[in-house]
């Protein structure tokens, strides 16, 4: 285990050390102490390493992640796991605005609540939230899965394309072109897997599925050139 004191050693040194790890590295376990809400912790990683951040983080923690597993023992600030490509990000506390925004792949697990715009423009990531998500979550979501074990705020899935949204609790309102959809056996299978990966003991049968009605401008053949 490598322990890195962020306060003493600085952000650039941390990210340089983490980004320098290759697929064959022996230094697979890292611990970051004195996070103190700092921005851009553990961004741009591209190796199968495990990074544990002690304390809460500021903006963009674990952004652009590939392969790495980043666990935050605290809450995450805005833009956590933004544009993640692969790997796993786990937050023990809450996540602020636009968690997992534009993420192409990987798994984002939020043990607490997520704030507004969770999964905005998600493009393939799987997001599992144990608590609630705020307003405008999955706005313009294009691909991937979002699981909300609690409630969803206003305008869930506004202008959604193809992502699947599973919500156990209430949905305050659905955004434009987002509708409730039938939960077929294959969706229950997908959800079962997501809940297991998300370290969540909820039952797939308790959830409703939401997705695109495909009625907006871009889906209308009369609008084709």
């Amino acid at each position, binding site marked *: 285990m490598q322990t890195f004191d962020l306060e003493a050693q600085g952000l650039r040194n941390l990210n340089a050390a983490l980004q320098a790890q290759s697929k064959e590295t022996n230094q697979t376990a890292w611990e970051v102490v004195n996070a*103190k*809400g700092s921005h851009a912790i553990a961004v741009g990683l591209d190796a199968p390493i495990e990074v544990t951040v002690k304390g*809460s983080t*500021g*903006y963009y923690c674990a952004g652009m992640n590939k392969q790495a597993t980043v666990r935050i023992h605290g*809450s995450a600030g805005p833009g956590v796991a933004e544009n993640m490509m692969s790997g796993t990000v786990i937050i023990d506390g*809450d996540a*602020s*605005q636009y968690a997992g925004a534009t993420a192409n792949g990987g798994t984002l697990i939020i043990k607490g609540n997520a704030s507004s715009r969770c999964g905005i423009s998600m493009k393939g990531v799987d997001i599992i939230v144990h608590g609630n998500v705020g307003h405008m979550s999955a706005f313009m979501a294009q691909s991937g899965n979002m699981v909300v074990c609690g409630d969803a705020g206003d305008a869930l899935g506004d202008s959604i394309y193809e992502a699947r949204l599973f919500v156990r609790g209430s949905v305050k309102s659905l955004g434009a072109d987002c509708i409730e959809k039938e939960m077929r056996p294959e969706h229950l299978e997908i959800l079962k897997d997501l809940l297991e990966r998300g370290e969540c003991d909820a039952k797939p049968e308790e959830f409703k599925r939401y997705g695109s009605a495909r009625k907006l401008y871009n889906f209308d053949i009369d609008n084709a050139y």
Partner: protein
Amino acid sequence: MCGIVGLFLKDTSLEPNLGRMLTDMLITMTDRGPDSAGIAIYGTEHKGKVKLTVQSDHPDRDFAGLDKDLQKALGGDVTIRVNDTHAVIEIDTAWAAAGRTVLAELRPDVRIMSTGETLEIYKEVGLPKNVAARFDVSSMSGSHGIGHTRMATESAVTTMGAHPFNTGRDQCLVHNGSLSNHASLRRKLRKAGMHIETENDTEVGAAYVSWKMQNGSTLGEALASSIDDLDGFFNFVVGTKDGFGVVRDPIACKPAVMAETDQYVAFASEYRAFVNLPGIDHARVWEPEPATVYFWSHKAAPTATEKAA
């Protein structure tokens, strides 16, 4: 950008540390807005007296003998406490309105930062750490306070353009965001008799809240109606003589985080502003909901009122 901080103390034993804690929070927010900074402190009240906190670019010239000149014009006791470019003048409450007029005649270059029984506002252009140091904010005590680090997106980078803005006795407001209908609202408020000095959008937000309260709204009601009447993105943190409130617009894209313990309620644009507060590791930390008014008072229980969409 811009950074906002606020601290409302429940535990009076922390009052001597208010300035130090707010300064630390403010400096942490420097990279959200390094062009100017300001701080409002709710401090000691002297019964029957009102404080005018004033600013001058020529403090040696303007503050010399000002107490005697005011005393001569107004009568009664006038005290003045000079602090760098600012001075806190205490006059009898009954003369508050007359004091402003007389002051404008006696010292035309002096600008009024705040009027209040407990409120004092210190603000200047420059880095938050320099602004806090020149007024020695760290040594100030009080029951609550708010602060602002500015990154100007409209209107001039001047002392008057810095936050907080005081538009009613003991009322002040700081803002992160941008109001798009401030010009028309400024005209309307000026017609209604509100005194608005700058082209800054935040001053309009502050004057709006004061105008609503002068017309019978509670602070909570004034903040709730601001959600209907102000266009744009905004996080407001307001101070009153005995309380402190927060409201965000319905879109809520500007960052805000709050923390509460048995000892205090804190607000900041970012969590890292909290890291040195006592007991923060065990505080309840949350993001205020959009279109929801939060208010804490030394006189009443906390409130959270959601504004119906």
